């Protein structure tokens, strides 16, 4: 892969919450790339550090976190950027979708206002009228019917799936080059999940944006992404093209995870597990 094909290049990324007991690292020396227009899946169980990785890329780590290593986005070293310059990347060129769409939207403002404010703060000389049209258009693109009316509704007036569509519309309005989705469908019902995943695929096809999908669900990444990173306890266990990870996993942990996933259309037998938890 040549440089120009790589949208995001992460090297030796380490995130820690240093305290008196030590560096307390939750992400350890992570290396991965996202190709331009590619879709990377980061898979791991709880506590694997997958969410911290996404926040580290966004520069949104909580207070007290320490980030080292290199994050190169489209040739720019993000870790070296001053906060002001980072802000112009954040939201505009890299956008993020979170797990719980209800708490991720501010209950005090209409969804239209919340879609518009990003647009207006990144684009100078935009009138309210124009921004509103952008918001309506973005909502139409995520298939929210009657967008011109619903743009003035508040988040609590939408259902869970619709809220997540609003979140996606928010990122869409900026035409980002990279979308980071952190467990975007975990809080949703399975039929709604399928719709949202379809929507993400549709948008990627339309805009050519790269995607980092963070999830605990191997079946989801297998459907959506072309490259996979498996994480455990902050370590990178294994990475490679999706097909290779699913057909020929090298690491015992990856194999264990794949064995543990209940299949809906495979043979039924005792789910194969390693006895780490059993008897602890």
């Amino acid at each position, binding site marked *: 892969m040549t440089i120009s094909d790589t949208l995001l290049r992460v090297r030796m990324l380490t995130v820690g919450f240093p305290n008196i007991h030590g560096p307390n690292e939750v992400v350890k020396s992570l290396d991965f790339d996202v190709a331009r227009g590619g879709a990377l899946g980061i898979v791991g169980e709880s506590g694997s550090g997958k969410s911290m990785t996404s926040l580290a890329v966004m520069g949104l780590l909580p207070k007290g976190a320490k980030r080292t290593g290199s994050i190169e986005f489209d040739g720019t070293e993000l870790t070296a950027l001053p906060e002001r310059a980072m802000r112009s990347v954040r939201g505009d060129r890299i956008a993020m979708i979170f797990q719980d769409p209800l708490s991720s939207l501010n209950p005090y403002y209409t969804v239209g206002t919340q879609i518009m404010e990003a647009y207006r703060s990144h684009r100078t000389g935009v009138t309210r009228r124009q921004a509103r049209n952008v918001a309506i258009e973005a909502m139409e693109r995520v298939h929210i019917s009657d967008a011109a009316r619903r743009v003035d509704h508040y988040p609590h007036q939408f259902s869970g799936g619709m809220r997540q569509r609003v979140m996606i519309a928010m990122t869409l309005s900026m035409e980002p080059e990279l979308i980071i989705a952190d467990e975007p469908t975990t809080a949703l019902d399975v039929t709604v999940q*399928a719709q949202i995943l379809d929507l993400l695929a549709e948008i990627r096809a339309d805009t050519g944006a790269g995607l980092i999908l963070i999830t605990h669900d191997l079946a989801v990444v297998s459907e959506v992404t072309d490259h996979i990173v498996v994480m455990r306890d902050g370590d990178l266990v294994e990475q490679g093209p999706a097909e290779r990870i699913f057909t020929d996993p090298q690491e015992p942990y990856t194999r264990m995870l794949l064995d543990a*996933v209940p*299949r809906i*259309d495979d043979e*039924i037998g005792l789910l194969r597990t390693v006895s*780490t*938890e059993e008897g*602890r």
Partner: protein
Amino acid sequence: MTGETLLRARNLVKEFTVSGGGLLGRSGRFRAVDDVSLEVAKGETLALVGESGSGKSTTARLIARLIDTTSGTIEFDGREVHALSGKALHAFRSEVQMVFQDPYSSLNPKHTVERIVTAPLAYQRRPIPGGARVFTGALLERVGLNPDHANRFPAQFSGGQAQRIGIARALAVSPKLIIADEAVSALDVSVQAQVINLLRRLQDEEGFSYLFIAHDLAVVRQIATRVAVMNGGRIVESGDRDAVFGAPQHEYTKKLLAAVPRIRPEWDAARRRNEQARREREEAL
């Protein structure tokens, strides 16, 4: 394996009053469970599947008599559960137990494991066979936990371990039916697999029945004997597991099955071949 009927629910209806608020507010009624009938045979697992708001959890609570039915009948082991009260209801409580979704929320954070696990017996005013210590130790071992941890508090366990404590508590009174309400959905996938295996093993050993409430069809397929699909408070389709999964009749069931994300079977097949080859290589060395 399916023998005589253990539980038979007929035309269950549950309506909730939706308060209009205040002195002048008008209150409405919301039908959460609408004419649901189901049967669970001894030793089998009936899975009740549905999305959020489908009424599956309410149905579970109706059957456990945690809430009262608006109308309909529940017959358990020859008794009319919906009409039970007082002593008889108390006795019914030791034959039906529940395992809940959130392992931490379902264990009292201020009680030790020993107290949690023996609580059903204490509430039933039944003696603890062999004394609390021995009894707890034995139960913990059966669910794959260290018997020496009886004096710890729930917060000192991982999610999977806490769920095992919840299962141990359900086993304490040797129930005939265990209602598992999303019992594995909050767990990580590797832990989930272990708990599913544990639930199956315990059923093999004890012969009790499960009413398994879940939204995850893949999980349901691993554990259910029969499946009932709920939507909007009604059961839209029910039948043997393989029939429902293999040849779904109702539109909703089809939609639900189609929506489940899946790992390509050809990838799984390729992986099995690769692993076989790897094992052969290793043996050759």
